[in-house]
């Protein structure tokens, strides 16, 4: 299972990467979301899979899965949500103001 998950994670990263390297801001946002999914699966895979019951006490499980990756992922999901929301609004606003979402045309001034 871990091997399978590792390969899936790799593919997700590759696809996300490909999307991030695009010109359109929309695709970049899609890419970050795909990479976020990939990294969540990566974290949970690295902790070892299905080594016991859920990390709940008092439910007759003698062994548990590792709870630390889960805690990390929980934090990550929420932060990823916040970032995605922000990026989307940013794309919306910049499209409104400058009239494009093409990164090639979104450039600084000449004095940079």
């Amino acid at each position, binding site marked *: 299972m871990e091997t399978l*998950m*590792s390969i899936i994670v790799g*593919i997700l990263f590759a696809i996300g990467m*490909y999307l991030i*390297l695009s010109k359109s801001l929309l695709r970049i946002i899609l890419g970050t979301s795909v990479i976020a999914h990939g990294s969540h699966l990566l974290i*949970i895979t690295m902790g070892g899979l*299905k080594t016991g019951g859920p990390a709940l006490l008092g439910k007759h499980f003698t062994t548990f899965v590792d*709870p630390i990756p889960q805690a990390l992922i929980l934090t990550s999901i929420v932060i990823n949500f916040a970032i995605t929301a922000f990026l989307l609004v940013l794309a919306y606003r910049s499209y409104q103001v400058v009239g494009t979402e093409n990164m090639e045309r979104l450039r600084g001034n000449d004095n940079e």
Partner: protein
Amino acid sequence: MSLLHWVIFTPFLFAFIVPFIYKYIRPIHTGWFVLPIPAALFILVAKHIPQVATQGQLRETIAWIPSLGINFAINLDGLSLIFGLLILGIGALVVLYSIYYLSKEKEALHNFYVYLLLFMGAMLGVVFSENIIALYMFWELTSIASFLLIAYWYQRKGSRYGAQKALLITFFGGLCMLAGFLFLGKITGTYLISEIILQVGQVKGHPGFLPAMVLILLGAFTKSAQFPFHIWLPDAMEAPTPISAYLHSATMVKAGIYIIARFTPVFGGGQQWFWLVSGVGLITLFWGSFSAVRQVDLKSMLAYSTISQLGMIVCLLGLGSVALYYGPGEGGAFYITAILAAVFHLINHSTFKGCLFMVVGIIDHETGTRDIRRLGGLMSLMPITFTLAVIGSFSMAGLPPFNGFLSKEMFFTGILKAAQMDIFNMQTWGILFPIIGWLASIFTFVYCMLLVFKSFTGKYYPEKLEKTPHEAPWGMLLPPLVLASLVVLFFFFPNVLANYLLQPALVAILPGLVGLSSEIEIIAPWHGWTPELIMTLGVIGIGIGLFLTFRSWSKLYTYLPQRFTLNILYDQLLIKTEDISRKMTKGYMSGFIRDYLLYIFSFLVVTVGGALLFLDSFVYDPTGNSTINSYEIVLAIIMLGAALMVLFAQDRVVAIIGLGTMGYVVAMFFVVFRAPDLALTQLVVETVTTVMFLLCFYFLPRLEKEKVSSSFQAIRVVISMGVGVVVTALALSAQGNRLFEPISWFFENSYELAGANNIVNAILVDFRGFDTMLEILVFCIAGLGVYTLIKLGLTRRKQDESK
């Protein structure tokens, strides 16, 4: 904290108070408040003269970083005492002079005195420090203070240029010197000068000897404006004249000489040291005096003259180092005199050159110009200034009855003896020493005469001057007067100086060869009709001849190549460096975020992938893997299908559906992996995210088919695949490399510790509570950002409508 430590720290501490004094006590010139500092410290240090003359040295230590055994040690011996007295004595005179030189209404006095005190403290630190790392720190601080003072009138382009040049050249040397010090520290295992000197034998045989020596000498040569690094000093003359008198003739530029003298016992006695030090000194001596003659600006003339005189002292120190080759006994006795001459001339130079700079400052201040082509006939208008100029420049030219005569004679003795040396290949080259030294002395004589007679005699042109000249106020005349009287006093009583200051300095430069009670040569003006005297007479005779015919031969200078001067080399180097770095930066800073992402991820692929590959850390060990169920395979296929859907989607709704599907499949995986909290959160978040995407896409343009060049497309595919492969390899290796025991068992006590049955929740809200708090903070910031971005749009729209 000993008294001597306070001597170093007092100027620094007072520098903090100066701005307040300047701000709140405006009617009185700030200089009057600064003046007592160097004056009092001078008396304090001068009180140590008898003690040093009888005991040799004083050492005081305070703990600096006690845990590492680093102490701030101070060493007051003959050499540092001379420098300390020069720094404080001339410092006091310069402060007094500056009170009349700088107007309290027009100038930013607080800056001036803060920088001056900063310099004073740093320079005292350089000469008193026993620890070479502390010495280096103070050394760079003097460079910074010098930079600030040269750029004091920063509105002028020349000041900024001169300051930058001085800073670049002296910092280059300073960094070299630091490297040299680190070499020395590595070789000897200590950073204390006295302990390094004790391990001379070990240093000499070490392969690091030569690099350490060259690097330290580079520091000394750049600071002391030795050829070919002398080019910064003439440009440093943009500083106010009191500063030129203080930093750029009497003290800071002598720091390099201090270093050479201080490290003579460590490196001296060999052929490389001898040739580097005396050779560079000799070239500088000649080139400085030769260039000084052609100058028309009085301060530039003095700058080149300073370069030349510094070269002479360095040359003498190089000659004197031969004493270490011979060791104690008859053979080396003569060379000790060369060191004596060096130290003696060091003091003499500070007195007459300080005096001359102040005289030039007076001329500049009273007439508004320093150009000798516009000056003339000032003798009757400024009789006292004229007298001071005569004393200063005749001493520099080497005429009696001034102290310069004595040290010039000793210099001639030194170079004559050098011609007879039979070691270090001197049989062939030795004859150059007296010839070049003598020629340089003739040029020195000529520019000294030019300095005095071009500005004070001849025809007076009032129409060429900006102001009507008259004698300077007493406050400006007093400091050069003090120095001029010292010039005369040292001629008549040189041996008082020799006994109390020069001999202890010799003990410091040549430990083991000279003792406090050993006999040193008595300095006397008359030795009979010696070759030295004949050389002096020759200098005077030819010098007068050249001076009188100056008009006819000075054209020769115009034939010198103008294109290949060191200044042009420096400028070109600076322009080229800026050019190249600008091009390099422009080359990769393309302004496209895509390129920057490419750099970042290529770096990731290369370093992480390379480390996995070359450090043999890639492990594939499927034995601990858990089983795969059939519906897990289905989930995996759906996942990949959805991901490909996002990748190839031409329509944005398709892409959103794909992304949403991925999110829900991730939630399913969380269920499979026994993570119920994650699954719930993921479901909620994914739903909200999808809604959000749909909402935003309503306002955004459709996805366009991308047009990219095929080469970029190829790079993009390669990098994406690379990242994917590296991540997979990393995830697989993490399975095989279990280096530590997991710490997760700790959380199984979550009920006892936190009262929670859900371990994940206990971690989030209790054990790692701060993480969660910061996560909420990120959430808040993002929320505020979203709100602001939308709100901002609304207000602007309203404004647009109201128009």
